[in-house]
């Protein structure tokens, strides 16, 4: 119990640091929001007036306080590009991206774990070479390259799936899945390659452990030794790596969503960055970092479920 309290408190501290870093990064630029709203050619007096109303002449610390205060009270401001309140906008886009992240994680894990274990069992034989080489190739291809290939093959070539756009699952579930499939695959393939390598490395280490030898000495058959004794010990480390990859995914969605015109969080952030929509940049960067941190927190807590050694401490 105190462990969880401890983690929650630590999370609050990290959230605070995340907000500070976000604010700092977005305030290193020479221009400001007023200039962006009115354009560079605007009347200097009007500009100064707007700065005054927006509070841009206040010290940075005061501005930061105002920003955090707004976040805490639910006033996240309005996007300069979309002319909409930010909070509901983010919520909607985050749902869309959540779908992609979950899909790609599911695709990656279901393939990576068996493949990685299989490679580890046949370490340094042709099965391993084949699996490891494929995985190596997979981690070396840029995500958008996967995306382009998938578009060429499944959308342009075979015409099976749409190559762009987003459909809300609430409107048409089938269409939503079809639109999410290719971007998820584009995200998932690289991830799968990475997780395969990790699983293989972890399992190779585990299979050298003494308790594996003991399990064999007990007369258990190889599949029990590998898939029960071995894999049970690999779940924790692989899960941790998968959790860390959530961060990587939220980086990749920026590229993939804009490639597939999938209007989720990545696409939104990209639009904000392109148009220097500072309030939106701040809010979406903060939200993405917070979600990534939360995902890792959940993985940490889940670790305690699969590993009794963590449970007690």
């Amino acid at each position: 119990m105190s462990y969880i309290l401890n983690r929650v408190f630590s999370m609050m501290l990290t959230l605070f640091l995340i907000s500070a870093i976000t604010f700092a990064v977005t305030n290193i630029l020479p221009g400001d929001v007023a200039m962006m709203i009115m354009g560079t050619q605007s009347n200097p007096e009007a500009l100064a007036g707007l700065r005054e109303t927006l509070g841009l002449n206040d010290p940075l610390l005061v501005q930061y306080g105002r920003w955090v205060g707004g976040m805490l009270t639910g006033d996240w401001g309005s996007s300069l590009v979309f002319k909409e309140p930010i909070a509901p906008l983010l919520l909607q886009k985050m749902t869309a991206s959540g779908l992609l992240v979950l899909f790609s994680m599911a695709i990656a894990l279901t393939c990576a774990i068996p493949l990685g274990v299989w490679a580890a069992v046949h370490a340094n034989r042709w099965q391993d070479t084949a699996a490891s080489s494929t995985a190596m190739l997979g981690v070396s291809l840029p995500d958008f390259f996967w995306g382009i290939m998938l578009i060429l093959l499944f959308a342009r070539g075979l015409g099976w799936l749409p190559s762009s756009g987003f459909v809300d699952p609430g409107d048409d579930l089938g269409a939503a899945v079809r639109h999410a499939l290719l971007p998820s695959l584009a995200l998932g393939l690289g991830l799968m390659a990475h997780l395969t390598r990790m699983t293989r490395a972890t399992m190779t280490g585990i299979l050298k452990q003494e308790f594996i030898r003991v399990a064999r000495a007990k007369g258990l058959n190889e599949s029990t030794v590998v898939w029960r004794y071995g894999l049970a010990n690999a779940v924790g480390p692989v899960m941790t790596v998968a959790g860390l990859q959530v961060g990587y995914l939220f980086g990749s969605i920026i590229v993939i969503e804009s490639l597939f015109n999938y209007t989720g969080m990545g696409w939104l952030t990209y639009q904000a960055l392109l148009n220097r929509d500072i309030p939106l940049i701040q809010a979406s960067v903060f939200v993405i970092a917070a979600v990534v941190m939360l995902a890792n927190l959940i993985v940490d807590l889940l670790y305690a479920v699969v590993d009794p050694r963590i449970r007690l401490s």
Partner: protein
Amino acid sequence: MPIDQEPLVSVDKLRVEFRGEDGPIVGVENISFSIAPGETVCVVGESGSGKSVTSLSLMRLVEFGGGRITSGRLGFSLNGEQIDLAQTDSETMQAIRGDEIGMIFQEPMTSLNPVFTIERQMTDGLRVHRGLSRTKARARALELLQQVRIPEPERRLTQYPHELSGGMRQRVMIAMAMACEPRLLIADEPTTALDVTIQAEILALIDRLKRETGMAVLFITHDMAVVAQMADRVVVMYRGKLVEEGPVERIFAAPQEEYTRKLLAAVPRLGEMRGKPAPEPMRLVGEETAQASPTPIDAAPEPLLKVSNLTTRYPVKGGLFRRTIANVHAVEDVSFDIGRGQTLALVGESGCGKSSCGRSILRLSEPTSGQVLLDRTDILALNNRDLRRRAWRDMQMVFQDPFASLNPYMRLRDQVAEPIRNFAIKTAGTVEDRVAELFDRVDLPRSFMSRFPHELSGGQRQRVAIARALAVNPKLIIADEAVSALDVSVQAQVLNLMMELQAELGVSYLFISHDMAVVERVAHRVGVMYLGRLVEIGSRQQVFENPQHSYTKSLLSAVPVADPTQRNIRDDLNFRPIPSPVFPLGHIPAPSIYDEVAPGHQVLRAQMGLGLD
């Protein structure tokens, strides 16, 4: 005793190869021996002798480590028929493993699967081999835990391995190996990782189970003392070959081969120094006997090192902001002196605080309170700069692990020269000359000076570490388990070197060790530590020949003697487990009060909250 009947196991001309970078490497070759039912055969050898490869071959587990049995027979009598395990298919092998042959391994900490309960690990073998239901398997597991005398067996079944102590885990391992009442138990260094009292318990347990069930035991070990205690017959191995084989009494009394004689000569036997006042180098076969040190017993009245009420506690961090939530009382109110040219040995089991004590004197760990006077210099009062200039100028340390105590990226010459340069030690010639002289002194060829550590063996590295310590002409060397990681023949050479250096240079040692037989060889005075306290201190003869504290007595009774005519394995031993040294923040322990039972022989007054009688 060998029983006159068909052998249970007959190994004939076994040869095992491993895949190497440049073609196959021979693991063992031409190994032949047999095991009769109910007999204990010990395979003994130093590291690299191939003793484990032999045992893993019998289980055909060697194949999982990249090995291959290329020739030879592994005869095994199964249901009255002789089969060749080397030719058996993998399904039959699976049926034999864990059923006909049980096996236990060296590391109780890693032999059990950390994420499964004890029950699951104990029952899966039974369910595979005996087809027992879950409840029946559980009942049998419970029975087995009772047989190996684990306290609270019901609770153990629901626990995970990390919740059990090392000794208890090894008992679980043995219970697991015994599950299907195997006719052969293979024990691969089962007590090497354990403290001496736990070792005595485990040896007694294996011996009792063997007598009760009539199974044969193949016991793999590097420790001649354990061999003397356990074996009916002995197989001596060296570099993958069989050296000699015979009944244990014959091997110890009249070894036929040069190697066996060398090995036995290098083994210190507890009790063989009885009646001798001063330490004595070992008489090694094929080497000139080292000079015994003419001991200046307290020639100078003033001791070199005076430690008073030394206390070291390590904080246990936790909770919010990683605050200190408890303290490990590693060293608790310890006082002793070391005379010039003398060796004080600190002995005790793991976690007793002997290493922390040594580190605290050097201030590699910062003591909480107390006083350390080296030649009247108050070590604990020195600031960082003076610590370097004054304390470490006179005191040096030799660490346990020869593979970690030298910087892998620095030439040995530079590592030995470092203290000379840093402390600006005056030398007759150049620094280079001094380093060469030091290499001569520790019997290393000068050509080694330009080498890197990985080009040396463990024993050679430890000599370099000693040379580095000697470079400052120290008054005191703290040797923290300095010979523990070495093979017994190398250990004897390094011990002799240390004793010689003491005789020549008059250096004092604080010799920290868990090995009572080694300590009996090298020490002038002995201090026994338990749970951070010094429970007994006196001259070597006082402590070894007339132990007063109950802990010292039980420790000495647990040490196996390398002599088959002095077997001290008793029916069943159960030493009291060592309590935790972690105490809550405000805990104030009672001060250490000693009774002087003889001049210089002090014994901690009973009931110091140590949980001892």
